[in-house]
């Protein structure tokens, strides 16, 4: 099984003209966390995924999906 979590974090963030640092402030995490989630290195918990979706004004399902 080689599943990976795809995301539209960067697309949506740049669309809203937010930096990683600003998004990190909104979700109360470090900028590195945002960076690693964006790059698919770190898989966020449900809690963080919900926070990110809320901060970016989209649904979790739109923001994240499972890639094969």
């Amino acid at each position: 099984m080689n599943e990976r979590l795809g995301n539209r974090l960067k697309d949506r963030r740049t669309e809203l003209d937010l930096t990683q640092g600003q998004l990190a402030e909104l979700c109360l995490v470090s900028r590195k966390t945002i960076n690693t989630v964006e790059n698919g290195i770190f898989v966020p918990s449900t809690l963080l995924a919900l926070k990110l979706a809320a901060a970016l004004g989209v649904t979790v399902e739109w923001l994240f999906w499972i890639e094969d």
Partner: protein
Amino acid sequence: MNYRPRPNFDRPDAETVQRTRRMLGWLLPLLLLQQSTIIFGRDSGLFDHVLGIAAWGAVTLSLLWWLLGLPFRWLSKRDQAILNDERSRFVSGDASRWGIVTLALVGFGMLIAQFWVRLDVGLTIYALVNSSLIVTFARLSWLNRAEPDEDE
């Protein structure tokens, strides 16, 4: 511009603590080397031994403090949340796993080695604990390596 309240203006914030954590990891081998010269110095007296053990204890406790990410009570809720965010906890957990594996492997290696070599108790404990700490902090430093650029 964002000013910090006066009582906290000279205390480290989350970013400073993160930066220090990244830098401290690479100092570890140097600290251990320095400790060993005091603890295992051939002609060192009782005072040097006590000093060495106190230094070892202080360094070990400080490292565990960094590793476990205990709350820095003077920091704001925001800074505490950033320092102990879920990625930071994941990184500590991963590094700790490496440390435990090292402890098991080095311990097992010593168990085998004692059939051929007479092992000194103090040296064995020192090697066992510090090999585990070195691996843990090398892993921690690697996972916490330099902050990537904004869109890197």
